[in-house]
């Protein structure tokens, strides 16, 4: 992922949040010229333009969050303040990215990515960065979207083209987070488990529950955004800070809405004339290209 070079380095400046927001939204917004930057590859650009969109430039949103101390660790429960902080950080970063897009008169953002870019474990700071390419529709910025609210799609150009072909349109990036504290085993159980082999019911229940809660939140966001469904959901689990027993489950996906009116797509069966090895392994491809070059030199 690209680092937010257009955004200020917002760590350590200590400015008030309002100022920060103003800077992040206002900073480095060049007027959309003929040479708008975009993170799209050449073929993605072609497909996006075929859908009637023009790229306006890369939009970035960042948020640094401090997660405060959590009270005494209650056995096997959700760490609600941490869930809220991580979710808020992601929402905030996305909102700022969207605000930049609105400022440029975009009708949407494609290829959006939201991730935790850095985590200062010692200071409990999470830096979340959202990046995407703002696009505008030839018919005007509000095509298909409510005014002032461009769509956000975590999809590349190819995926967007297929989605529109099947009669759907992207609505928003939706996410859900749940940080869960996995209870310690009681000493007796710990001793028994040295030799016992079997399921750990409490730990299973805790993590299974955390995953359900995270996805339920994603679903609630999608429903609130008026979506018909969510595609490309990915679930990630990590332990960023607060110790190994606090497991963070986060999921993100692109909410989509039915537009209708699209004729059914009939896929054709094709045999691709290229080596399968190279399709899956770019290193092998470049090695082969290098070998050929050496051969040509001789």
């Amino acid at each position, binding site marked *: 992922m690209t680092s937010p070079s257009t955004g200020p380095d917002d760590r350590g400046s200590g400015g008030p949040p309002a100022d920060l927001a103003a800077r992040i939204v206002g900073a480095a917004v060049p007027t959309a010229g003929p040479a708008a930057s975009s993170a799209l590859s050449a*073929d993605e650009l072609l497909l996006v333009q075929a859908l009637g969109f023009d790229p306006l430039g890369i939009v970035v949103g960042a948020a640094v969050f401090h997660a405060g101390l959590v009270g005494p660790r*209650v*056995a*096997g*429960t*959700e760490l*609600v303040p941490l869930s*809220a902080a991580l*979710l*808020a950080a992601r929402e905030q970063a996305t909102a700022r990215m969207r605000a930049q897009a609105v400022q440029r008169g975009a009708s949407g953002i494609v290829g959006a990515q939201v991730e935790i870019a850095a985590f200062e474990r010692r200071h409990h700071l999470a830096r979340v960065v959202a990046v995407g390419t703002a696009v505008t529709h030839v018919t005007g910025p509000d095509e298909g979207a409510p005014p002032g609210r461009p769509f956000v799609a975590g*999809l590349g150009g190819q*995926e967007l083209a*297929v989605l529109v072909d*099947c009669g759907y349109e992207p609505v928003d990036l939706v996410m859900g*987070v749940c940080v869960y504290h996995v209870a310690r085993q009681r000493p007796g159980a710990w001793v028994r488990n040295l030799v016992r*082999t*079997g*399921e*750990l019911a409490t*730990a*299973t*229940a*805790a*993590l*299974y*529950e955390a*995953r*359900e*809660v995270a*996805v*339920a*939140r*994603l*679903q609630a*966001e*999608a*429903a609130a955004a008026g*979506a*018909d*469904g*969510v*595609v*490309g*959901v*990915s*679930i990630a*689990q990590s*332990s960023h800070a607060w110790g*190994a*027993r606090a497991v963070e489950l986060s999921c993100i*996906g692109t909410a989509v809405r039915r537009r209708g009116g699209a004729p*059914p797509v*009939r*896929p*054709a*069966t*094709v*045999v691709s*004339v290229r080596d399968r090895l190279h399709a899956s392994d770019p290193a092998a*491809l470049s090695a082969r290209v290098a070998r050929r070059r050496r051969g040509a030199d001789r």
Partner: protein
Amino acid sequence: MVDGHNAEQEPPSLSPEGLPPDARGRLDTLGGGGNGPALFTSDLSVNEFMLIRECGFHPRGLVFGSSIVNIGVSVRRWSKNQEMSRYTQAMYSARELAMQRMETEAELLGADGVVGVRLDIAYYDWGRRSAEFIAVGTAVSATGDDGWKTPAGKPFTSDLSGQDFWTLLQMGYVPVGLVLGNCVYHVAHRSPRRAVSQVARSVEAPATTQALYEARELAMARMQQDALGIGAEGIVGVQLVQKSHKLGTHVVEFLAVGTGVRARATDRAIPEPQMILTLDR
């Protein structure tokens, strides 16, 4: 956004069918409850989504199951090739539990099957001797005719991608279930004498070869047995993976996973494939 759903309360426990308390509520909002329009979630890519819809299915929801297994110590003979049956059993049943729970979620949704099932393993720092087995997939329902469920009346499961699922259906086959077989094997150490005598020689280590060979065969045989048990006619997309599970250097697990399939219509023929030369690398 974040509601303290069960803060400062009892830790959650699994219901008799193995689901956590919030699972039912989540699945109800996916259109099972009857209030409001149906929503679907899926981890399918857009291409897969398109293909699934094209062959007469629609995604219903992301379903998953999980089981954390504790791996206790087990005796192994230093110089002996042997299967570690307790570990084999524990890991097999943990995967089965995770898959069963995923299937239960799919059943609660009223789905006809689950596609794109992934079996993941997660290790955590807080449990040195435990591993979480996770099954994740997208539950799908047929739009038109039925008869997609397994002979046992359960939703089918399959680890095929949307593309492979489409191709399979074009051939007139349907998935029955994910089948797996595993074998945790202890590979014997060489005796010190042999190790010394072989320092300067490059020779086959017959005992090691045989150990790995046998472990692989056992895993495959068990997978085939699994497929026969659910009434499959064949297995497609078999993957044979080798894992060490932090059980030491001489303990390996072989896992064979594939999708058991059965014929549904025999008169289907796929259209003549077209040759294309792609321009992307």
